[in-house]
C-alpha cells in the first residue's frame, strides 16, 4: 500500500487573480503538482465577435487592470497588420513611451509589494513597509511615475482611452509630458537604487531548464514588435506564432495552458527571458548596473526574475526620458484605413511576457474571430515544470512539508502570474440534438 499525502495551497496570495496549488506526494516522493486556476472564464474573445474593430483596444484592455496597455498595443498592432497600416515614427515612439509607463508601474508593484516580502519572511507588503519604509516609499513612487505617464498619454492611469487603431485619438498635451521629466530623472536614479537593494536579497539556489522565449528586434530592446526569439530554436516571424505555439485545456485549470509544438513542451516568457535574449539591447545605465551588481546572462534562476524586472524598470526610465526629451508630435496622430476581409497578427511584450493577438476582420470592419494568448497562460506549463524540479530538489534535501508549500508558492510568485489575464477565454462546444 502506498503512502499518499497532499499539500494544498488553497489560495495563492500576492498574485493577480485567483488560483491554488496542489502538491501530491506518494511514498515521500513527488507524484504530481498542479497550478489550479479556478477563476471563471471571462469571455473576451467571443465578446469581440461581430463588433467594430475599433472596439478591440478598449475591450481587450479590460482583461487586466495592471497591464491594459499591453492588450491595447497587441490589439492595435494586430489590427493594423490586418489593415496594412504602417504608423509614423512619431506614433511609434509615443506607443513605446506609453508601454514604458506600464512596465514601470507593473514591475514596481510586483517587485515591492508582491515579491519582496518573500525574501524577508514577511506575510505582506504591509509588513515589509514597517521594516523597510524608505525602500517601499521609493517603490510606490516609481509605480506612481508609471501610472502618471500612462495617464498623461492615455487620459487615465488604468484602462487608458487615447489609444486607437491607426495611432492615437489625439496627441497628448506636450506640457503634461514635459512636466514629468524631473520626476523621471529622479526615478532613473531611484530605480538604480531599488535594483541594488533587490540584488542583495538572499535568492534560493535553483536552476530552471526552461526554453526562453521573447520578442527580439535589431538595435532595440523589443516592446511593440520583433521576431519571436528562443534560446533553443531559430527565431520565427510573429505570423508563424500559432504554428509553433499552442494552447490546450487541462482539467485542473480554467485557463488554457501554452506549449510548443509538437509535444507541448514548456517555455518561459517574461523579464528573465527578455533579458536573457536581449541583454545587449538594454540601454547603457541598465547594462552597466547589471554588470555592477553581478547579474549575468543567461540567468536560469526564476527567483532572480526580480532583478531582471528591476533592470527593465531602469531601462524603461532611460527609454522614457530619451523619448520625453525629444517629443515630436508633427504629422497626423492617426492614420486612415479601409477595412477589407483580412487576418492580422501581432505580439508585444507585456510586463509578464509575450502577448499574442490575432484578428480576422470582414470588409465592413467587423471582427469575425479573435485569438488572444496572454503570457500567463503560456507560462503555466513552465511554472508546473519548474515546481516539479524544485520540489524534487527539496524532497531530496529532506525539506519539511510545511516549508515545501511556502517555497512552492514563492516560486509561483516569482513569475508574476496574472491569473485574471489567463482566464479571458471561452471555448464553446455546440451540440445539435
Amino acid at each position, binding site marked *: 500500500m502506498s503512502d499518499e499525502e497532499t499539500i494544498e495551497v488553497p489560495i495563492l496570495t500576492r498574485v493577480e487573480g485567483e488560483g491554488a496549488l496542489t502538491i501530491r506526494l506518494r511514498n515521500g516522493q513527488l507524484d504530481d503538482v498542479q497550478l489550479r486556476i479556478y477563476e471563471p472564464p471571462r469571455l473576451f474573445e467571443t465578446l469581440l465577435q461581430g463588433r467594430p474593430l475599433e472596439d478591440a483596444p478598449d475591450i481587450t484592455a479590460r482583461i487586466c487592470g495592471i497591464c491594459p496597455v499591453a492588450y491595447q498595443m497587441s490589439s492595435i498592432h494586430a489590427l493594423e497588420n490586418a489593415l496594412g497600416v504602417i504608423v509614423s515614427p512619431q506614433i511609434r515612439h509615443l506607443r513605446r513611451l506609453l508601454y514604458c509607463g506600464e512596465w514601470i508601474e507593473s514591475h514596481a508593484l510586483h517587485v515591492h509589494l508582491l515579491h519582496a516580502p518573500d525574501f524577508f519572511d514577511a506575510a505582506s507588503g504591509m509588513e515589509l513597509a514597517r521594516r523597510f519604509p524608505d525602500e517601499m*516609499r521609493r517603490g*510606490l*513612487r516609481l509605480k*506612481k511615475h508609471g*501610472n502618471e505617464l500612462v495617464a498623461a498619454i492615455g487620459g*487615465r492611469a488604468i484602462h487608458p482611452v487615447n489609444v486607437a487603431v491607426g495611432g492615437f485619438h489625439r496627441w497628448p498635451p506636450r506640457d503634461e509630458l514635459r512636466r514629468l521629466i524631473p520626476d523621471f530623472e529622479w526615478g532613473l536614479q531611484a530605480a538604480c537604487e531599488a535594483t541594488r537593494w533587490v540584488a542583495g536579497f538572499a535568492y534560493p539556489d535553483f536552476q530552471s531548464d526552461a526554453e526562453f522565449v521573447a520578442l527580439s528586434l535589431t538595435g532595440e530592446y523589443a516592446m511593440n514588435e520583433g521576431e519571436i526569439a528562443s534560446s533553443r530554436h531559430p527565431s520565427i516571424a510573429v505570423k508563424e506564432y500559432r504554428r509553433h505555439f499552442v494552447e490546450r485545456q487541462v482539467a485542473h485549470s480554467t485557463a488554457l495552458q501554452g506549449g510548443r509544438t509538437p509535444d507541448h513542451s514548456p517555455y518561459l516568457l517574461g523579464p528573465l527571458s527578455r533579458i536573457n535574449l536581449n541583454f545587449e539591447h538594454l540601454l547603457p545605465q541598465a547594462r552597466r548596473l547589471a554588470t555592477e551588481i553581478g547579474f549575468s546572462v543567461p540567468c536560469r534562476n526564476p527567483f532572480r526574475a526580480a532583478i531582471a524586472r528591476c533592470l527593465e524598470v531602469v531601462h524603461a526610465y532611460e527609454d522614457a526620458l530619451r523619448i520625453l526629451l525629444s517629443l515630436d508630435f508633427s504629422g497626423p496622430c492617426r492614420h486612415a484605413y479601409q477595412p477589407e476581409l483580412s487576418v492580422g497578427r501581432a505580439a508585444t511584450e507585456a510586463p509578464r511576457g509575450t502577448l499574442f493577438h490575432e484578428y480576422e476582420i470582414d470588409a465592413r470592419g467587423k471582427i469575425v474571430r479573435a485569438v488572444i494568448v496572454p503570457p500567463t497562460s503560456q507560462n503555466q506549463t513552465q511554472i508546473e515544470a519548474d515546481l516539479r524540479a524544485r520540489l524534487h530538489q527539496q524532497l531530496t534535501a529532506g525539506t519539511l512539508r510545511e516549508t515545501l508549500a511556502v517555497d512552492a508558492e514563492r516560486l509561483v510568485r516569482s513569475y508574476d502570474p496574472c491569473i485574471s489575464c489567463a482566464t479571458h477565454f471561452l471555448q464553446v462546444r455546440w451540440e445539435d440534438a
Partner: protein
Amino acid sequence: MSHPLAVGVGSPHGDDRAGWLVIERLHELGVSKADARIVQSPTELCHLGSPQRPLLVCDAGRSDAAAGIIDVCTWPAQSLPVCRGGTHDVSLGDALSLSLHLGAIPSTVAIWIINGRDFRPLSEPSRAVIIAAAQLADHLWSEWHHA
C-alpha cells in the same frame, strides 16, 4: 496649521466623483490646492500626507443606503463603512494601512463616505451626491473656522 489636509479620492465617473466634489467646493471656499487635494488612487496618500498633520479623506461608497447619505468614521478605531465593489486599484483600507506603516499619515484619520448610486463611465454625478458633497464641504469649512 489651521486645518487638516483634506484628500478627495475618486474618478470622473458619475457618483464616484463625490470625493472630488467635496474638495472642489473647499477650493471655492478658499482652501488652497495644497491643503485640499484630489487623487484617483488612495495609494497617493503615501506621498501626500505626514504623520504630524491631521488628515481627512472623502470618498464615494456604494451600499444599500440612498444616494447622498454620508457616513463618517475614525480609522482605524472604527472600521470603514462596508461598500459593494470599488474602483480603486488598492482599497482605501489597504492604502491607509500601508501609508500608516510608511509613516506617511497620522495614527487616526477621519473618513467621510458619500453614498452614490450611478457610477457609469463619464456620467454626471447624481443631484443627491452633488448636494451632499456641498453640504459636507460647508460643514468641514465651518468646523475648521469655529475650532
